[in-house]
Structure formats: C-alpha cells, structure tokens
C-alpha cells in the first residue's frame, strides 16, 4: 500500500470508529423516540451522570465491577424516575411540551450531578490503553476498536431483543401505532418504563466510553450535539440508521478535517456534520432509514 493510501485508510478507519461513538449516543435517543415519540434531550445529561457516578465510586475505592453494577442500578432508577415523575403525567401532551420537559430534566440532572459529585474533572481509566496497533500497515487505536466492539455487541443484543422476544414485539407494536397498542391491551406505561431503563443502560455504556476518551467533566453532556446530526441523517426512529449515520458522520468529519481543512482552515470537524445533516434534510426529511410508515401504493 502506498503511504498516501495507507494514510487515507487510517483517517477513514479512525473516522468510522469515532462514528461508532456517536452512534452509541444516538441509539439512546432512538429507543425512546421510537416507542414514545419523545426526543429526549436529557440523554446527554444521563450519559454524564452515569460516567460521573461511576468515576466517583471508583475514586472512593469501589472496585470496577462493583462500581459498574452500582451505576447500572442508579441509571435504572434514574430512567424509571424520569419516566414516572415527568413523562407519564405529561402523556398525550404535544411533542414540544415533552421535549421542553426533557430539556428541563437535562438541567436538573446536571445540577444534581454537580451537587452530588462536585465539579472537578475526573480521569476515567477503563484499563484499555489507547496505543495504536498495526493492522496490515494501518494504525488503529486499540481503544477505538474496543469501543466499536462494545457498540456492536450492544446493537446485536438490542436487535435480537426486538426481533425475538415478547417484550420486543410489544415495543415494536407501540412504536408502530400507539393507539392500536393501547387498544390491544398492551400496557404502555410498562413499556415506556422498560425503554427508559434501556436508554439509561445505553447512557451508561456511552458515558463510560466517552468519559474514558474525553475525561469526565460537564462538557460530556454536550455529546448530544454530536448525536443530533447523526439522528437527522439516520432517522430518529431507526437503530440501524443511527449506526450507519454515525459511521458516515464520523468518516465525513475526519476526512474533511484532513483533506479540506488545509484549504478552508481547520476546525471543520466541529460543524461539517451539521452541514451534511442540513443538506440531507432537504433531500430526505425522514432520514436514511427513518421509514415512517409501510404504505400500499
């Protein structure tokens, strides 16, 4: 492989792998949006809360496994509490009301996290060193590979769950037609509770990986802003869409930074995803995979 090509592949692979990290955040949004039509702006705050709780526990001497299980418990409780205390009383309200509620929840969670664990920046070490390994002449970050594997595993588990379990079928039914699901006797509050728990767990996984990458600090909750273009591109209601769009956004960011950056100045990485998403909105408003309805023609 020529050095130029090797470099391109390296940039591309780096971009795709960082895209997986975006997809991880986006999946949390998709789960809730799909089943309850709520765009949960608090997903980033949940992610921060998870990472902060985990780090604070380990810093107080709790072993890794114990801290993980405890944080998992906290996230389950947090998800249940938000669903029960905020969203269930607002059921049947217009989407914008629900969105504003989650915006409020985001700030409450951030404030609570600050109150409980303080404001200093923490380092988070998952025990995976970030040294590059050489795969056929291309250097790939060990940590990125690990993150991709975790994301892949999580998606596989979620897909199997949706496809083959009774609860998964109920999820899909609610996502497809909430009124019909209610009328069929499915217990919507239970399904919503389950989905908030699931998104809490996704937030934990994403929070640990992002926290290890960026350090655990308050700007961590801003990774939601990285997830938004991914959602626009992939469709708000498709897990597959979140993955594919995450990969696209990651690759576009890195490639444009490296190859366009020198011509129009650096820092493209920060905004190119939004440009891509905006352009995409004009062509396909429902996103790549956000097929809203199956319709006979």
């Amino acid at each position: 492989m020529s050095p130029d090509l090797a470099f391109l592949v390296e940039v591309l692979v780096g971009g795709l792998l960082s895209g997986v990290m975006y997809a991880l955040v986006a999946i949390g949004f998709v789960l809730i949006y799909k089943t309850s039509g709520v765009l949960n702006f608090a997903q980033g705050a949940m992610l921060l809360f998870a990472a902060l709780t985990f780090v604070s526990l380990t810093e107080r001497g709790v072993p890794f496994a114990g801290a993980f299980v405890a944080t998992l418990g906290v996230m389950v409780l947090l998800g249940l509490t938000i669903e029960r205390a905020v969203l269930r009383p607002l059921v049947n309200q217009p989407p914008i009301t629900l969105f504003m509620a989650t915006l409020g929840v985001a700030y409450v969670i951030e404030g609570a996290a600050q109150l409980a664990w303080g404001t200093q920046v923490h380092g988070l070490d998952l025990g995976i060193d970030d040294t590059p390994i050489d795969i056929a002449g291309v250097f790939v970050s060990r940590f990125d590979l690990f993150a991709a594997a975790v994301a892949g595993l999580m998606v596989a588990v979620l897909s199997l769950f949706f496809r083959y379990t009774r609860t998964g079928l109920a999820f899909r039914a609610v996502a497809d037609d909430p009124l019909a699901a209610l009328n069929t006797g499915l217990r919507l509050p239970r399904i919503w509770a389950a989905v908030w728990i699931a998104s809490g767990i996704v937030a934990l996984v994403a929070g640990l990986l992002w926290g290890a990458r960026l350090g655990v600090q308050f700007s961590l909750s801003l990774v939601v802003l990285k997830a938004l273009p991914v959602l626009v591109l992939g469709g708000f209601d498709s897990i597959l869409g979140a993955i594919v769009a995450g990969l696209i956004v990651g690759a576009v960011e890195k490639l444009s930074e490296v190859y366009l950056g020198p011509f129009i100045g650096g820092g493209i990485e920060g905004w190119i995803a939004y440009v891509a998403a905006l352009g995409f909105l004009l062509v396909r408003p429902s996103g790549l995979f956000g097929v809203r309805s199956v319709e006979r023609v």
Partner: protein
Amino acid sequence: MTATPLLRVEGLEARYGGAVRALVGVDLTVGAGEIVALVGSNGAGKTTVLKAVSNLLPAERGQVTAGRIVYDGLDVARTPTDALVRAGLVGVLEGRHCFRALSVEENLVTGGLGRGSGRAAIRADLDRIFSVFPRLVEKRRALAGLISGGEQQMVAIGRALMGRPRLLVLDEPSMGLAPKIVAEIFSTLARLNRDERLTLLLAEQNVTVALRHADRAVVLENGRSVLEGTAAELRARDDVRAFYLGLGAAPALTAA
C-alpha cells in the same frame, strides 16, 4: 334482556379538549350473547361512544363528563384499557389500525400479549384465528401494511379475538371495503356470535348491513341516542328507512 346486561351505558356525555361536546346523552345496553348495532350518520358520535366504552378517550384528549359505563360490574371510566381487555372487553378501531410494519402473524400475537396469554395459549389461539380467517394463512409472514384492506380488517378482528373477548366492540368494520368482503366479515362475526356466544357491539354507517345482522340497534343523532329497538322494528319504521336505509334500499330489504 331480563338478566343484568353485560354492558350498560347511562346518560353518557363526553367532550374533546375540554370544549367540543361530542356526546350529550347516550343510553344503551348490550346483553350477553347479543349483537347490538350503533347506527347514525357521520359525526353522530358513534366512534366517541365506542372509545368511551374502551376508555380510550383520555388518549385522544377527550373525557367523559357525565354518565357512566359499566361492563360486567366494572366502572369503565376507572378501569384502564388494558385491564378492560383482560376482562374480556376488546375493541377493533375504526380504520383497522393494524401494526403496519409488523407481519400478520406478529399482529395477531400482540393481541395475545395484550391479554397476557402464555406461549401455548397464543399458539392455540393463532391456529383458531387462521381457521376463522383462512385467507390470512398464506399472508402470515407478509407485513400488515402491504395486504389488502379486507385482509387488514381480518387481521384487526383476529388480533382482537386473540384477546379471547366476551364483548367485541367494532367501529365501522365495513369502512372502505368491497360489499363482498363486508358480507364475508359480517357472516364470520355472526357465526362467532351464534357458535361461541360472542357478544358484539358495532358501530356502522352501513345501516342496511348492520340491521341485517343485529338483534337490536340504537340510533345516534347529534351525540344523543334517539331511538332504540329490535332490528326488525327499526327496519320497519318509515323514518329509519328514509334517513338511513335510503328509498332504494327499502324494497330490497322487504324482499329479503
């Protein structure tokens, strides 16, 4: 009609969004084993009555403001829809509302999930539904959004039957379907009523078909129940013939 009716609606009033009055006084009863038709023109309030019976109005930002609905001793307004389903009151919504992105079989299974059936019960009920609607067998893997309107109605009814209802509440089962399919669906329903004593409450704009199969009917006008009687009585009334059956339909009915 001497025994306690399975469903009793008394002085029902309802509004949407706190302002729009949809019902201003509806009374009706459905006895076990009966077929009762709720007839009336567009906007008379048939759908609202049926949604109130399934306690679905809150999901549409509507509410019952007066009167009460009692199903088998349960106060419907205080019983969530899912609990009503498990008590045997299952509805089929207007416009079918199949889960379009789910296969036919998955649609049917959700009806079993709603009832809380175990795996064995769901499998047995599936076989039963496929024998009631044989057309669905070859479509079992097809997405419900891609099958014909008549088949979708069968899926919607089949899904409700998976809940093993005692009272099946149907909103406009004939809507948008070819007369032949309507006849097929109604004869299936009549057979379930006859053979399994399935009680039916159905709203219909197609009054001719409704009165042909129903034991009794209640006429709804502007949110109020104005007339109630056996199907034969109503068919014989001049005003019903003129308003709902149309002049052309009346001779055909007497001939039949």
